[in-house]
């Protein structure tokens, strides 16, 4: 703001002010003119000479009054036992006996999983399968299973598509041996992990072999043991503990299937693998003996992907079932892990053989498809649990989608990373998946889960109402309102709305 006074108005004042102001000597006695607090302290400080009325400081007595210290809060109660908090955090409750039993509830089965008339209804997971699903850690703690009588999932469009694929691969002769490879993406709470769960359930129904990696992060967070693979490959690392855990999961969940299959290949590196022993026993040896876990896993994989017996072992061979592999939280595999090498440099996630094995499946196989007996690879990304920098993965997934849509990598429409951005060439290399030579092997796709439709949302909300949790009249208008509130039918948000109670009318 411009002052209303001009320089000319103020000049006479300036000249006279010198005479009005007190002399510099008096100003010094008051202390510095621009400090008030410091001056007070200066005035009040006892002098060293011990004048009359002032106190003399004792030896090492602080000149400044001591501040009162805050009392430290002492927790009287003992902390809970080690691991209890984590156990509570990770506890999965699948049943609420107070919730009403839904009448006419259908179970997920071979018939219902392909029945498009049931689209939008909630289907219960069969009770005997719950143990298998628990074994492969299909349920996550925050998915809200605990308020219903029994776990159910909604049959949405993507689920039906998946169901039809499972049905075709197992039943249809022409489609036998087909492979789909999908990276499942989508917004937060859009049902990516539950989509994987539904795939696992279908795999169990169709008697596939199901391998799951419920938390991809656990393999790269440096919380389990690791070692160089061998003398020849000092830059590759094996994680025996994690492999043993995978084997024990797989054995527990696929006991029925694996016990019907026998070792029919030669495994010179695994002395425990005797011809004729069941694959269940083979996997169990790896789960129990961590040192041999990786070798056993490789043997098991070789057995499951075999299309015929080794010479001389024909009597042990039976056709192998398709394989389902699910990975949740793919982003953590697309950067450096937390493990360190001998030079104390971070090891890239792709140098861990476990990770490398499952990522190599995304590429088309050379002599035969990567899953020769058919199967599905469903690798889900996460929106809430990601490593700090996933830019490369974002671009690589766009490239995957473009390649799938038929855009040539040389064309200007093909998505490229921003110039000068920090990208990881190994990620591009891993996700670069050209079209396979084999007709049965599908190309890598990026499937984005969006919101459910209005009809599906209505079915979901009706399931809430019939369970006694939602006490509202469900009409099309009401569902439409909630569908909009849920960001266009994002199913996790719909669940939150369904749980929220409104009592006062």
């Amino acid at each position, binding site marked *: 703001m411009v002052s209303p006074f001009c320089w000319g108005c103020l000049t006479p004042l300036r000249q006279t002010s010198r005479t009005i102001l007190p002399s510099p000597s008096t100003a010094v006695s008051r202390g510095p003119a621009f400090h008030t607090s410091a001056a007070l302290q200066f005035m009040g400080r006892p002098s060293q000479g011990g004048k009359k009325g002032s106190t003399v400081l004792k030896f090492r007595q602080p000149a400044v009054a001591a501040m009162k210290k805050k009392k430290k809060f002492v927790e009287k*109660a003992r902390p*809970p036992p080690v691991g*209890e*908090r984590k156990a*509570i955090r990770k506890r999965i*409750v699948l049943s*609420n*006996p*107070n*919730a*009403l039993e839904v009448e006419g509830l259908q179970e997920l089965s071979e018939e219902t999983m392909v029945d498009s008339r049931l689209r939008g209804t909630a289907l219960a997971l069969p009770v005997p399968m719950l143990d298998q699903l628990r074994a492969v850690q299909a349920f996550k703690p925050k998915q809200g299973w*605990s*308020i219903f009588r029994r776990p159910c999932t909604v049959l949405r469009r993507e689920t039906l598509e998946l169901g039809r694929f499972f049905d075709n691969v197992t039943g249809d002769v022409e489609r036998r041996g087909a492979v789909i490879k999908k990276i499942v993406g989508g917004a937060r709470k859009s049902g990516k992990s539950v989509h994987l769960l539904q795939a696992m359930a279908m795999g169990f129904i169709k008697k596939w072999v199901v391998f799951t990696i419920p938390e991809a992060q656990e393999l790269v967070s440096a919380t389990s043991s690791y070692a160089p693979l061998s003398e020849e490959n000092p830059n590759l690392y094996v994680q025996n503990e994690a492999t043993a855990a995978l084997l024990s999961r797989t054995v527990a969940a696929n006991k029925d299937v694996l016990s019907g299959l026998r070792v029919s290949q030669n495994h010179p590196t695994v002395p425990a693998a005797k011809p004729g022993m069941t694959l269940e026993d083979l996997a169990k040896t790896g789960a129990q003996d961590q040192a041999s876990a990786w070798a056993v896993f490789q043997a098991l994989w070789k057995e499951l992907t075999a299309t015929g017996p080794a010479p001389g072992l024909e009597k042990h061979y039976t056709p192998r079932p398709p394989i389902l592999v699910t990975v949740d939280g793919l982003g953590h595999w697309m950067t450096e892990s937390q493990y360190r090498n001998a030079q104390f440099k971070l090891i890239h996630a792709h140098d861990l053989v476990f990770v490398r094995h499952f990522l190599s499946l995304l590429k088309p196989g050379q002599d035969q498809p990567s899953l020769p007996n058919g199967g599905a690879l469903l690798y889900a990304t996460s929106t809430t649990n990601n490593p700090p920098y996933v830019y490369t993965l974002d671009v690589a997934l766009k490239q995957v989608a473009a390649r799938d849509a038929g855009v040539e990598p040389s064309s200007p429409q093909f998505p490229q990373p921003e110039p000068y951005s920090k990208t990881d060439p190994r990620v591009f290399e891993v996700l670069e998946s050209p079209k396979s030579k084999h007709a049965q092997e599908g190309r890598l796709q990026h499937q984005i889960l969006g919101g459910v439709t209005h009809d599906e949302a209505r079915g979901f909300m009706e399931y809430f109402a019939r369970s*006694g*949790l939602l*006490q509202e009249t469900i009409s099309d208008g009401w569902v439409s309102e909630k569908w909009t509130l849920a960001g266009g039918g994002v199913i996790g948000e719909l669940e939150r709305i369904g749980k929220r*109670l*409104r*009592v*006062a*009318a």
Partner: protein
Amino acid sequence: MPPLLNLFAARTAVPALRVSAAAPRVSLSAAASKSHSALSQRRWNSSGSDGKKESEEAQRAATSMPHVSEEAAEVSRIMDKEKRCDGVPSTPELQQGTMVSEILSRDKEAAKHAPKVFQDQIKKAQSGSRSFSTSARRGQLEEQKPSGGDANADASDAAQAAMVQSMIAQVTEQAHAAQHELAPGLKFPAPETLPRTENYRSRYEPLLEQFTKMMMRDGKLGIAEKNMNFILDHLRSSPPPNLNPRRPLLPGGPPAPQLPLNPVKYLTLIIDSVAPIIKNKPMKGFTGGGASVPIPVPLAERQRRRAAIKWILDASDKRRDTKFAQRVANELVAVAEGRSGVWDRRDLVYKVGIQGRALVGAKPRTRSRI
């Protein structure tokens, strides 16, 4: 260029219509020029004949004044255009627009397509009939009374009854129509009154909000809400409470087995059942000697709930469960089943209140210090 018919002008157009389209319009500037000319005439020319002629001329000029907008353009050309450096004409018409009524009066084609409201008003103004009656109804009734003679008494009574009937029917019909008909300007029926929880600011139940905020520590509402979610889920999934007949919950609620299905109601019932209706306020001056005596003071609903929640949170601190929310949830179930010490705490408050109730309404004997 600004639009010819702007919003400010349109707002003023309708009252102008309502006043009267037929009334002679004397524009401000015309009046000013008239008075000005009269004034100048009075000062410089004292002859009466001259003044008469001048005033006649002014009247004629006033009656055959140019159109308002033309005049405005003229004035502005004189007043404004020469002064402005860029020479852009800026008339009041361009700034304020033209009255819609004027446009309609000079453009018959536009009047035909004018909004119905305008057309109705123009018609009304032309017909000169009011939409309401100014005659008193009582007078009519009194006039009618004597007209019915002794012979026609029954007939007139019947006619009156029929008239009253028809009036009542008309009124009820109108009321009925008002219910079903849309209010003017609405395309769809007006929404019913929304429940309180539909507004996002008050989307949670009052009790839930109060409880959550009392659980909040360090201003971390999100964590408190997470804890509240846990508590509600616990109430939802824990077995129905075994009610203790000595510690009954408030009557009127759902039976115990149905409580977990509505955890909010369950929680409200627990809190309201254990909430004290009084508080004992220590007051001095009743006994003399400066001793303070607890005097019972009634509490409002929110205050009662606050006391109960505080007691429950205090009692839950003494539990040994791992998680805070788990402790509170277990304490709530204990209250519902009558096992909690919170009930004893309330009993104590009531006991002290009964002791002090003789002094309710009494005035202290000594003057309290300010």
